[in-house]
């Protein structure tokens, strides 16, 4: 189910909120779990079983780790390894099997073989990257003694499957919600703040991301077919705005829904395009993934404790795997390498990059332009398209977009307003926490407009559903 769909907003959410309010405290976790299964199963009911399996494995393995420790049979590493194998195996199969086969076929063809053996494409379960990371983080945290084991399976299911953040994050570590899983309160303040975040998120998605999306789509569709430099830059700026408003909008809605249920979820975005370096960008963009990769991968690889060269290697490896986490394609690997490269450059140069000493607006602009380069790789369907788009950005394209593909007035409005929101307003969480009355009243109009526009367009899924 998609947050920005009629079925969610006008059927699932009202029904759930009513039932949740009426459910006795002891059954609330079960109610969330059940609703989450409906929410997830709406897309493909059979994949609920996969999520159940993944949850059950980590629930029992974490208990086995504690049992080993209590019985003096070591730290329970074997169970941790089992968890890694099962989780990464599932992720590998569902997310990367097709990619592996395609790569293998390409290799065979390069070696002169036919490479046309039969293969039925594996369907990628929505959100598997997110919930697998969550179940893994639980087992790792228990192994590292940073979290208690959860006593009731239903609570663990509730944690893994919780519909607000199930399919596209934020990635919530077990330790973050451990207390609230056991006991949480629902107050009017939380409820109000949750509603505001939900409204902000929906407005960002529908009134900004979806409005500028056709500009980006048109530009990428025309890459190599007459796209000129102006069209390419406009297209990639539009995509930068689209992906930010789309993903941060989803995160805002998820955090808001969490508050409506009584949970405090981690913040996922903090004005990333206001960052003054790529290093800072990654502290502000998809923060829960950044911290996950930092804590469970970069530090596990040695972090910065093994000398500068190893630090650079660790940074690069972390970003390469982070890129691959986003999708099974060489463009994502290249995107990870691109981000890793700039992180290494900035770390190597310390405060001496060419833009580090420039005025703040220039530093922000430079960082944004560097981020745009990454978005080309992120958005392109294949390295060929990315190459054609880069060529167009630097004047190697054609004579311009056909008139039919030019942005309309609505898209221009989205671009201008989007730019203002990105650089001229505080973050969503700050707006919702301040709740200035004038802003709240303006937001109500925007919320109604977003709902109206949702009626107008068919349901448009969030971009991060594919990861």
């Amino acid at each position: 189910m998609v947050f920005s769909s009629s079925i969610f907003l006008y059927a699932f959410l009202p029904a759930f909120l009513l039932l949740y309010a009426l459910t006795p405290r002891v059954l609330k976790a079960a109610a969330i779990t059940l609703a989450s299964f409906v929410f997830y199963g709406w897309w493909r009911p059979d994949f609920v079983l996969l999520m159940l399996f993944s949850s059950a494995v980590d629930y029992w393995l974490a208990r086995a780790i504690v049992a080993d420790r209590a019985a003096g049979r070591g730290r329970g590493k074997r169970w941790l390894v089992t968890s890694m194998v099962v989780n990464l195996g599932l992720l590998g199969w569902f997310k990367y099997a097709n990619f592996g086969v395609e790569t293998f076929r390409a290799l065979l063809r390069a070696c002169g073989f036919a490479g046309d053996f039969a293969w039925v494409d594996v369907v990628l379960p929505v959100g598997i990257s997110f919930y697998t990371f969550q179940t893994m983080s639980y087992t790792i945290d228990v192994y590292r003694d940073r979290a208690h084991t959860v006593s009731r399976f239903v609570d663990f299911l509730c944690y893994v499957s919780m519909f607000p953040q199930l399919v596209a994050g934020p990635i919530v570590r077990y330790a973050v919600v451990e207390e609230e899983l056991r006991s949480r309160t629902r107050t009017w303040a939380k409820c109000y703040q949750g509603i505001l975040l939900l409204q902000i998120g929906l407005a960002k998605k529908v009134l900004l991301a979806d409005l500028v999306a056709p500009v980006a789509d048109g530009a990428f569709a025309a890459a190599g077919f007459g796209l000129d430099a102006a069209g390419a830059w406009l297209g990639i700026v539009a995509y930068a705005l689209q992906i930010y408003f789309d993903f941060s909008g989803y995160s805002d809605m998820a955090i808001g829904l969490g508050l409506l249920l009584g949970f405090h979820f981690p913040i996922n975005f903090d004005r990333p395009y206001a960052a003054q370096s790529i290093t800072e960008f990654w502290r502000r963009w998809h923060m829960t993934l950044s911290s996950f990769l930092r804590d469970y991968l970069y530090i596990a690889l040695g972090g910065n404790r093994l000398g500068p060269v190893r630090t650079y290697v660790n940074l690069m490896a972390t970003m390469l795997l982070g890129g691959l986490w986003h999708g099974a394609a060489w463009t994502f690997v290249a995107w990870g390498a691109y981000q890793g490269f700039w992180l290494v450059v900035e770390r190597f140069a310390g405060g001496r990059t060419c833009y580090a000493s420039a005025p703040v607006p220039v530093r922000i602009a430079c960082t944004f332009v560097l981020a745009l380069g990454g978005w080309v790789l992120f958005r392109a369907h294949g390295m060929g398209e990315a190459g054609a788009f880069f060529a167009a950005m630097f004047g190697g394209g054609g004579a311009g977009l056909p008139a039919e593909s030019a942005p309309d007035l609505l898209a221009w409005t989205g671009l201008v307003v989007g730019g203002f929101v990105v650089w001229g307003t505080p973050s969503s969480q700050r707006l919702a926490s301040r709740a200035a009355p004038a802003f709240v009243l303006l937001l109500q109009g925007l919320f109604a407009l977003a709902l109206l526009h949702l009626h107008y367009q068919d349901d448009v899924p969030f971009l991060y559903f594919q990861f």
Partner: protein
Amino acid sequence: MHTATRSDPRQPGGNDVIATPATLFATRAQRFAAATAIAWFALLLFGTALVDAVAPVPRPELIGAEAATAERARAAARFADGTLARQVELVQRESSRVRRYALAAYVPLLYRAFGVVRDTQLLGSDGFVFLRNRLAPGGRDQGEHVRAFASSCATLARWLDRLGSRLVVVPIPRKEVVMHDRLPAGVDPGRERDVMVYDQLRRAGVDVVDLLAAFEAHIGEPLFGRADTHWSQTGMVVAGAAVARQVAGAAARAPALVTAIAHTEPWQLAYALGLDPSAATFLPDRPSVVCAVQGPVPPIAPRPPADGALPVLLTGTSFSANHIGDPTLFVEALAAGIGQPVWSAARAGGNPFPLLAAALERVVGRCPPVVVVEVPNHMLVSASASPHDFAGVFAALPPPAGTVLPHGDAAAPFDLPPLARGSTLLPGRLELRPTKAHFARLPWDGFVCSRDGTLLVELRGRVVAGAAAVVVDTGDRQSTFVWRAGRERVVIPVVGGGTARRLDVVVRRHGSEPAVLELGSLQFAADAEPGPAVAAQRSAPAADGAVVYRADVAAAPAVGIGVRLAVPGTTRIDVRIDLELADGRTVAALVANAVQPKAHLLVAAGTDEPIRAVRIVTGGAEPRVPHRVVLLHRRRE
């Protein structure tokens, strides 16, 4: 132990959770804003859910290819793969009253303020909006669909002519073709596809009004609405006059018009505010010119007079019964032009042929002097299959007498092969169950016939419970008639153009009610009189060495040729039937590969010229064999 922090959200971290400050309700203004936000949120979500659940609106009635696609999606919906959930979402969206009303106001606003249209639409110059799916061709077999439509119209015209009625077909050119100068540069509307419709109808001998030519004579005028797919009031008047000229010939009068600038009327205000439940996507053009036919207009009736002579019958779609602007201006212009009353059975969103069938069933025993059928071209040239099914229309008309064709009777001038083994559509009481259909099948490739209406399927009996669907299935084309109680005879001609290599008559239950059919008889007949059978004689081989048989027949025009092959063995053969005309020319009547060696062929002559001889060219059959040939002549009634 790690603990989550509820810190200042300005500090980036990665595990910092959202903080709920204690000052959210500190001031009166904040409390007011909070109450407003919570109430507004509840009203919009819970209110919409409640209104849509308690008072849903009827879902749009789909027709043609869209209806077929939707039905296929419905039938294929499964719980396990989530397709059923998609169907539920679709139903929820389409039946949402809030959505329907909200969009009626919002869509025009978007269009007028931002010039924005949906993805399915294309914005041209001067504010003109076009539908993308009407630009694209419907499929590879478009020409075949149009030929089939023309052939079916020709058969209908023949049936009506026999009853003293005249069929006039009015294909409406697509807006994209007529207003092509308003399309974005480089967009090709595919004019040749509309031209093909008129050409094919003319070639089939159908009385057709070439509205494309009529409109192209008024190029530069706003013949279609800017933001509507239908013709404008100017278009209605031009079309009405063109149809009147065709119907009344020299007696037609050009309708005199009065015009005025449109004013906003109360109902339009309601429409703009979204209070009109029938609101369409766009508002009518404002300001616009309103036309009215000046002087007395002959009456326009939505139903036939109870007795006496019937007026001209018009059936059609939302072009004839337009829901935007003046709903009857086209009909008024037609009535004023011909100087006669018009009975309009057209309906917005309707398919003209079921509407024609319904109209004809209301006046059993009487027939209008002229039947005008308006058909939008996009239904023919932008749909994946023709949505027009003529079975109901034929079943509503008195059938021709026909000549019953026996099965396997060598003594008859022309006969049919016996029904294939397993055929269950036999006389007697037939319980029609949801999972079981009864069928009668002529052996595939053992009977080859032209779908020109010469072959008739006749069922006698009565439906004693429920309703039965009678389907005449020729493989790539199905024609369906719903047989209900009160009717004892159903005759459906095999129409659709081209040649059929298979013929099934299938009867199944229609709807969910139990159905019982007491079938008296099923027989096949020819809408023609077979002449005497003539034996074909071995002739000189063809240039490529193929065996040729030739049957000299009385030089006479014929509507069809019956051939009974008698090639020994069981190996399938290729066969060609050529006709030698009285003037010495040769025309091909049939080319068919891999037919059964003793196949029965009933093919259209395709010419009005007298036929002197029939040549049968086969790829084998060395011994002399007794092929038989029969000319079928149009029966005079």
